[in-house]
């Protein structure tokens, strides 16, 4: 009790600091045991990773034993249940590749722009409002995205695809075009002598505008005539995957941009650079490793996504012709595994069963490499900014 603690004259320290040897050993053992137990629990992540690789390997290897390596990666004939079966998964790899590429095309420019906006442009109050939106986009389950793609977007694309695409093209093309016209006319006339410059500029702008407008109308006509046989196609899936990858790209690149710090920005502003110039020439280059990490994580999200592609990609194991025709249905690795495991389940041991694990192994390795790449990029950006 505090009240009774007044030290006596003799023996100020009533307590011995030393533990007896056995007590000390006991205490040390107890602490060690507790730490060991915690460490063991912590290692469960390691075990999980080891077991995942082990089990996917274990069931994937027999396939390569049965069918060799060449067929899966070079052939496009995917008939696992036919007699004789053929397991050419090239088209499936291609499908995964093209939707991922599509998702990156959608997500990276928008994501980086949004991140820049959040970290440098918008006032704090708007940022507070944008954060929950991003979190909600990230939180919505993938099956809901897939449902939207299948039930809302696919019919829309199938019936009014041309109109949708044209509206998109105009919305994106018109401002971009105008901007290009202004910048181009400025650049082209910068060498001219002074009195004639404004006139030439105006004329040039008018001409370029007309050309741009003509190009846009041609593009719209082309789009309106485009045959869209099926709304469940690579374009649909790419857009949805891109939106799903956006939150990842935004938050990781925003962190990277934040890490650049005020000094660098102020140095650039002090030299008379505008905000855009500061960002494009100073901040983004300084943050490029972090942005690379954002891209890699976005890719991982898109490659590994199952439900959206399974529901809305059309699931046709074919390479579209021409290969960049994103209006054709395709099929991805994840959708193949999800769709065929149910049927292959009862033929355990057959090539048909093991090929799915082989595909899963490829998927796993792709993500593993991406992950290492992302981690390396993050580490590099941290090291560079320090």
């Amino acid at each position, binding site marked *: 009790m505090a009240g009774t603690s007044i030290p006596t004259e003799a023996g100020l320290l009533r307590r011995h600091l030393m533990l007896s040897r056995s007590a000390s050993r006991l205490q040390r053992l107890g602490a060690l045991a507790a730490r060991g137990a915690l460490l063991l629990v912590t290692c469960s992540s390691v075990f999980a990773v080891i077991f995942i690789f082990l089990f996917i390997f274990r069931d994937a290897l027999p396939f390569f034993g049965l069918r060799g390596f060449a067929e899966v990666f070079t052939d496009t004939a995917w008939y696992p249940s036919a007699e004789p079966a053929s397991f050419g998964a090239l088209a499936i790899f291609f499908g995964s590749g093209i939707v991922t590429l599509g998702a990156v095309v959608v997500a990276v420019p928008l994501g980086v722009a949004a991140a820049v906006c959040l970290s440098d442009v918008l006032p704090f109050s708007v940022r507070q409002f944008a954060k929950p939106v991003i979190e909600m986009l990230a939180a919505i*389950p993938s*099956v809901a995205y897939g449902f939207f793609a299948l039930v809302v977007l696919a019919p829309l694309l199938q019936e009014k695809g041309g109109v949708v695409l044209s509206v998109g093209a105009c919305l994106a093309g018109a401002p971009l075009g105008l901007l290009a016209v202004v*910048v181009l006319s400025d650049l082209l006339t910068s060498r001219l002598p002074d009195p004639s410059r404004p006139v030439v500029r105006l004329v040039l702008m008018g001409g370029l505008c007309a050309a741009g407008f003509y190009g846009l109308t041609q593009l719209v006509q082309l789009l309106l005539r485009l045959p869209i046989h099926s709304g469940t196609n690579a374009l649909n899936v790419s857009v949805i995957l891109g939106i799903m990858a*956006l939150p990842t790209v935004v938050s990781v690149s925003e962190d990277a941009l934040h890490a650049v710090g005020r000094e660098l920005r102020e140095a650039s502003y002090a030299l008379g650079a505008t905000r*855009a110039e500061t960002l494009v020439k100073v901040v983004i280059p300084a943050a490029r490793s972090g942005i690379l990490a954002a891209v890699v994580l976005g890719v991982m999200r898109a490659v590994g996504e*199952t439900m959206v592609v399974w529901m809305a990609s059309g699931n046709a194991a074919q390479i579209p012709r021409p290969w960049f025709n994103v209006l054709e249905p395709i099929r991805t690795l994840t959708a193949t595994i999800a769709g065929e*495991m149910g049927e292959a389940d009862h033929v355990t041991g057959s090539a048909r069963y093991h090929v799915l694990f082989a595909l899963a192994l490829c998927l*796993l390795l792709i993500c593993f490499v991406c992950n290492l790449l992302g981690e390396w990029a993050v580490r590099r950006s941290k090291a560079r900014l320090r």
Partner: protein
Amino acid sequence: MRLSTRKLLDRSFSGLGVFAILLMVGALLVLLAPIAARGSRAFVFRATVEHRQFMLEESGRGDHDAIDAEIRAAAEVRRKAYDMIARFEEELEAAGRSERRELRRSLREVKDHLAGLLGPAPGNARPVLLRDQYGQTRWDRALVGLGDFLYVTEYDYSDPSGMGRPLLVPRVDGFRGTSLEPLFAYVEQNLERMLRPRLTFYWRFLFDEGRDAHFFGGIWPAVLGTLYLTIGTMLIAAPVGIASAVYLAEFAGEGWLISLIRTCIGTLAGVPSIVFGLFGLAFFINTLGVSDSKSVLAGCLTLAVLVLPTVIRASEEAILAVPKTYKEASLSLGAGQGSTVLRVILPAALPGILTSVIISMGRAAGETAPIIFTAAVSLGRPLSLRQTLSQPTPALPWNIYNLCTEHEAVDQIRHVQYGMVLTLVLLVLLLNLAAILLRARLARRLAG
């Protein structure tokens, strides 16, 4: 470059960013609007007398007398239609043979469509399938059915290069001059009196079992399955994840083992969800044999591995965010490391940890791919707690997939699909909202 051009470029750059953010807001709205609008119609809709009759007969709900009276009133209006058909059938007997066969076929179609609208005609044997025993329970579906009743869809192949264009031909054209001709106008005008639609709040949609492949009833087994999976997952993942986070934040130094652990957590976070599904099947079911085949338990274990990295990372962050002074104060009072963690650090980090757990719950609730092979079935009864150890269950995410791709009548049960999506999205968003609020409170508390 001129200064004004530079400024323009600057402004358009900001514009691009604002556009990107607006696009995200727009995407969220475009995504949520149809889900909210059409999903709510699973709960609030104009229910016909057939709905009330179904509720009364199948689960004894509703006011017996009132519904009986309603059924009788509706039957009164319907009788005229059936009378017209009966008269037409008599007339057919008198008609010529070839003509008769043609008309018989058309008549059968008329009767089938009418049965689809109003349920089996009086005097007919009780059909086998539940869905045939009742007419349309929802007025919106009834209007679609009315369209099918009034018009025959034919295809116009005049353009040989394209696909056939659908044409709507009034069905009544086949019966011009017969005694059946007035039937069509009669049904069209009196359908409302035959079905007596009334705006109904069917909140039991959430708590009813689906009947006859979701033609009737609600989604309780799937909701319950999702709750089981979510809570079970967190019961496994939260202790392991929090313990790991405590170790990493408080006890771990630097060394090869710790960096291995960190790399593994990163790797685990990057494994595609479908691979977790395969792993769960191969490991938990086929190797460990936690259950003979799919079960809630196996699904929970698989999902727990999936959310583990999220829980660990966010909890570690929460623990590291606890001010160092708390730890110093506790140690200076003679508390050991263990009691410092348990009594000071964990309580202070609790809101942050809870936030991470709640967000992971949302993730577990929405994941589909990992439970395809480990836990989910498309049809099933609600499970008891004991059964979760050995039985598979319907679950919202899987049933959404299943109902909108593999169901026999995808178009007829859109409201169920939307209702399920709305329920799932609401569940996940509410969990996230809770997390956001919790975090805001935490921020305020640490500030004040």
